[in-house]
């Protein structure tokens, strides 16, 4: 006879608890959940409570706030962040990278020097691998330089997946078969995995963009891809993120945002650059 699982009844999240959680999560991550996300937030908190065996919100929230190693908080961050993406998303920016941005970046560089690119947030890795594929396939000077790609996210679970580099065919539907064949292998269950050499070429790190202590080692980048992150932030966090990107970039470095995001509305730190392929932002040289 099967032993029934212990059913812990999870109480609903009260308005007061929701507000308390929202303020805390915002202070920790810069992500502000509006009231219309209430259902999404409640469900994920309750799911975390259930899997951890917590009987009430207070007990759970105390653990999130005061656990010394931050494991519960990290699990909550992982549950709350959105990670839906695919290869070659907003491809026009990748075109812009190889046709306009990089030629400008290397104008005063010598062969053998290093170009640094930061993909942040990198989610499950589609963006940094897309950048790598694109450079290898479409930038004629790719062999002239050392290219460092650093890929970061606040969510440790997506980073684990990113390092694994394993994707369903839907994720690679916009990549040519030829490119997929060169840089991915098909697994027995019909998924595609990025080849070892390429996976090892990208440095995956966990960081919180609005935490000045965590991000202070991210410096000297020539290009930052920060797409579809700022839309989850309120104005204050957006400004802080812009400042973090500014300090991470070398003078003259570029930042690419998502198509619905505009740095001009956030900060005056950057200059607008209109290239034929895309509008990007540049740190003054």
């Amino acid at each position, binding site marked *: 006879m099967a032993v029934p699982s212990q059913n812990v009844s999870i109480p609903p999240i009260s308005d007061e608890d929701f507000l308390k959680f929202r303020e805390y999560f915002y202070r920790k991550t810069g992500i502000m959940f509006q009231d219309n996300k209430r259902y999404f937030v409640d469900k994920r908190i309750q799911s975390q409570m259930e899997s951890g065996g917590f009987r009430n919100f207070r007990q759970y929230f105390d653990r999130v706030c005061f656990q010394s190693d931050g494991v519960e908080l990290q699990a909550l961050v992982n549950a709350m962040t959105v990670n839906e993406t695919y290869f070659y998303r907003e491809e026009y920016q990748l075109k812009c990278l190889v046709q306009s941005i990089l030629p400008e970046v290397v104008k005063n560089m010598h062969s053998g020097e290093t170009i640094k690119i930061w993909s942040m947030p990198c989610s499950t890795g589609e963006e940094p691998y897309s950048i790598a594929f694109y450079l290898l396939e479409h930038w004629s000077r790719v062999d002239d330089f050392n290219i460092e790609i650093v890929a970061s996210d606040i969510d440790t679970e997506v980073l684990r997946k990113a390092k694994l580099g394993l994707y369903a065919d839907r994720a690679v539907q916009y990549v040519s078969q030829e490119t997929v064949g060169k840089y991915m292998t098909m697994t027995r269950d019909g998924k595609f995995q990025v080849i070892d050499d390429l996976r090892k070429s990208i440095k995956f790190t966990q960081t919180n963009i609005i935490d000045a*202590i965590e991000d202070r080692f991210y410096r000297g980048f020539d290009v930052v891809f920060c797409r579809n992150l700022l839309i989850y932030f309120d104005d204050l966090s957006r400004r802080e993120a812009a400042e973090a990107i500014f300090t991470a970039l070398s003078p003259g470095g570029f930042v690419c945002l998502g198509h619905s995001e505009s740095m001009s509305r956030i900060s005056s730190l950057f200059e607008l650059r209109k290239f034929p392929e895309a509008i990007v932002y540049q740190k003054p040289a």
Partner: protein
Amino acid sequence: MPLIKASNVSARKKAQPVATIDRLAIARDLESLDVDTRIAAIRLAARFGEAELLTRHLAAETDPVLRETLLTSLVRIGGVRAARPLIALLATDDASLRNAVIETLQSMGEEVLPEIEAQLENQDSDLRIYAVNMLLSFRSPRVPDIALRVIAQDPHVNVCAAAVDVLAEVGRPEMVEALQAAAARFSDQPFLSFAVRAAAKRIG
């Protein structure tokens, strides 16, 4: 394969614990001639809640972009800790800085309202006017009563006029009498009588 593994210098896995950061270096870096160093120092100072240090630097910072970064950081610190040193800057002769400080205080929310309210006792009537002008942005139910107290007590006509403007927006019908009393108190100032009539018409 031309792509190389990123060096550990560019991105370490874990940041150092807070205790190992040299806080004295932050103050030193704020004086740096290098903009990147100054911005990084501002962000770290904010992370440690160093509102006074940041505000002192704000008064000296000439780069408008860095001023913006400083103000963002002070909003993030928020509360009384950031509001007090900022309020001290309201007396500056630099109009652009003063306006930026006012906007920053206004964005800090209701928790700094008591600090603004305290400025209504300041001997400098200009500071009292700034304080009254800021009241509306706090959207607090206490604002009408604070403005009412100003029109009943403040000896300076321009401070009272600013409070009349506040009451025109958020006053209640029972406050009309107090408004008229203020007009009577400054009967030699026709512009105040005019403002009171307009306010009374709106809320009466």
